[in-house]
């Protein structure tokens, strides 16, 4: 023994690591999104498939180019660009033009993520940055919805939220839950999103406090409004299953990078989103407010983290991380 062992690694403890990795987390997110993705392709046809492909491909290419330009060692292997690509397509209307998808994906990666320093450093959810950009540049396209193949409730061309807000027409819960209403690619079926998210919750890849506090806040606030004026304001169940709330609460607000790291912080973050969603939906000018609510609360995450810093062991506080 001696010389031949000179290649022994000298890193600092711990010398064993769990099997968790960024790649594994991202792959899990991708896999759990697939049922909802598949269902939306079935509902909206080939164009939806193209949207997903173009969005993911553009995200990967943009990421690759920027990483090269910044001379960073990080490769595409972590899979985070694929997640952004899929999520961006999921929050766009079914017939969104493909060149628009390309533009949105470039903005999502370059402005939403890489400008801040790449994976881990971004403040805002990249996919939502992409969508916000498209909402500002293509206001007509972003609000043009078509009915899915299996329309369970063919009341109008509008989304359930727009129908509620501008026409006072309600959509059935069955249609909302199972999917079969107008809306963005990924927001038409609450069921498939929930199924996927359960796995992530079990694996603790998403912090359950965030979606739960969003749902509870929306339900309670929605109920209050509903009690005040049932004719004008929908009941809480409608709020929960309509529009982007499911995908937003389960997949956007729970993005690790852009959500708080403490338990109390997660609750504050979720409640904030819930309040904003209900206010924008019922009192604001837009039919849907999930995107802006999340982006707005993203900006407060550093502050929330600082304010909810746990009391260190032995300083008299309770365990409240």
């Amino acid at each position, binding site marked *: *023994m001696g010389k031949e*062992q000179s290649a022994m*690694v000298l890193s600092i*403890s711990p010398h064993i690591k769990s099997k968790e990795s960024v790649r594994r987390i991202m792959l899990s997110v991708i896999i759990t999104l697939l049922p909802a993705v598949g269902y939306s392709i079935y509902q909206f046809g080939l164009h939806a498939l193209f949207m997903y492909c173009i969005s993911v491909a553009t995200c990967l290419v943009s990421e690759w180019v920027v990483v090269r330009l910044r001379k960073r060692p990080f490769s595409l292997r972590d899979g985070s660009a694929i997640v952004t690509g899929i999520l961006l397509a999921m929050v766009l209307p079914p017939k969104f033009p493909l060149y628009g998808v390309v533009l949105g994906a470039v903005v999502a990666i370059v402005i939403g993520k890489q400008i801040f320093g790449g994976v*881990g450093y971004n403040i805002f959810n990249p996919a939502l940055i992409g969508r916000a950009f498209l909402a500002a540049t293509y206001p007509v396209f972003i609000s043009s919805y078509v009915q899915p193949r299996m329309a369970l409730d063919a009341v109008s061309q509008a989304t359930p939220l727009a129908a509620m807000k501008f026409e006072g027409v309600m959509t059935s819960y069955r249609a909302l839950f199972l999917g079969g209403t107008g809306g963005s690619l990924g927001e038409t079926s609450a069921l498939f999103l929930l199924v996927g998210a359960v796995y992530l919750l079990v694996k603790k890849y998403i912090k359950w406090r965030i979606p739960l506090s969003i749902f509870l806040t929306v339900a309670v606030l929605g109920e209050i409004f509903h009690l005040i004026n049932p004719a004008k304001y929908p009941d809480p169940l409608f709020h929960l299953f309509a529009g982007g709330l499911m995908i937003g609460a389960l997949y956007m607000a729970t993005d690790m990078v852009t959500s708080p*790291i*403490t338990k109390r912080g997660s609750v504050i973050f979720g409640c904030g989103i819930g309040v904003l969603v209900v206010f924008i939906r019922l009192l604001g000018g837009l039919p849907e407010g999930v995107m802006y609510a999340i982006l707005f609360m993203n900006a407060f995450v550093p502050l929330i983290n600082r304010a909810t810093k746990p009391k260190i062991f032995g300083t008299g506080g309770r365990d409240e991380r």
Partner: protein
Amino acid sequence: MSLFTFKGGIHPPYEKELAKGSPIQTAGLPKSLTIPLVQHIGAPCAPVVEAGDVVKKGQLLGKGESFVSAPVHASASGKVKRIEKSLHPLGQPVLSVVLEPDGNEETAYMTPMGGDPGTLDPEAVKARVKDAGIVGLGGATFPAHVKFSPPKDKPIDTFILNGCECEPYLTADHRTMLERTDDMLLGAKMIGRILNVRRIIVAVENNKKDAIETCKKSAHAEGVEFSVTATKYPQGGEKMLIKAVLGREVPSGGLPMDVGVVVSNVGTAVAVCEAVRDGKPLIERVLTVTGNAAKSPGNWLVKIGTPIGEVVEQAGGTTGTVGKLIIGGPMMGIAQSSFEVPVIKGTSGILLLREEAYMKEGYLPCIKCSFCVQVCPTRLLPSRLSVLAEAEAWEKMEEYGVNDCIECGSCAYVCPSKRPIVQLVKAAKIKVREIKKRENA
């Protein structure tokens, strides 16, 4: 029955099956012993022998003038070849006595004091602990007599004998509890005598069923309490153990004595028993040779100063390419560059891990998954600390409790970005200390 435990922590693969069934074997006399004059936290020892001297087993080799120091003794009879700076498991070369054993095993122990704790003079026992060079054998190597000398205004009511052995792979404490039960309990009662405590509690993780069975019976007969804790890393950390067993939280920046508790490792208790009853100084210890690159994992009683390589040879050698040689366990042990380093008082294990890709992998930015926040036993924000360390924001790190970090490594273990959080924290602690020093100067 609900188990005692703390909040946070992790469940790594324990890999105790490798060595836990193998009884303690006595390692043979090596050709040469290298006995460092620093094997403890505190002032180094000055040699009291010279090259060419013939020494007996147990004879004093070096001692320090300071109170916080622990003398070292010859672990075999033989001739002092030289006194020189040699490799040390903690990294920095240390002045060491190189001894060539003559095989006679002639002893020069101290006078036995008897084995009845009830009749012993506490002060004499404490002095014996000091003279025997006993340090914390769990790995921290803090001189035991210092730990057993709390100031008058900090009365100790409970002594906890730590048999948790929460580090994966290691089974030396487990075997000690099984095979040296009586000596261990006797040692614990001697320590209890020094501290004048009301309660002595043996704490063991519930993954050591046979040890619990064996110890419980004897403990009750001796009037010693027994506490079974949950199997969770780092259950054996002093602060976590005290919280689990007594519900007391050691204040930030404080010591167990601040809440009236002293915690010692089971091996330390055996060493105290031998020093008091038999007059034997701390010249050997039980350690585990294990890991997936160890041919036949097992537990060995090894003379202090034996080169690691010789212990590994005697234990059957290695298999495959050794990617890492670790002194201690996989969570807090120290990686070595050479098999020449000697076994010292704090060497609880020799862990041989086969070369694997992850050992050389780089790391990614923090993705704020908060896994580390949930497992940190001291409720820090390890992710934040690691980012602040990269930004060299040392003052800010102090505000975020960097000095409260016990370096257990739970955060780095769960980190999906594989960030070297402990490494960053260790470096930051040194920086923070430097800044403090400059401010006070």
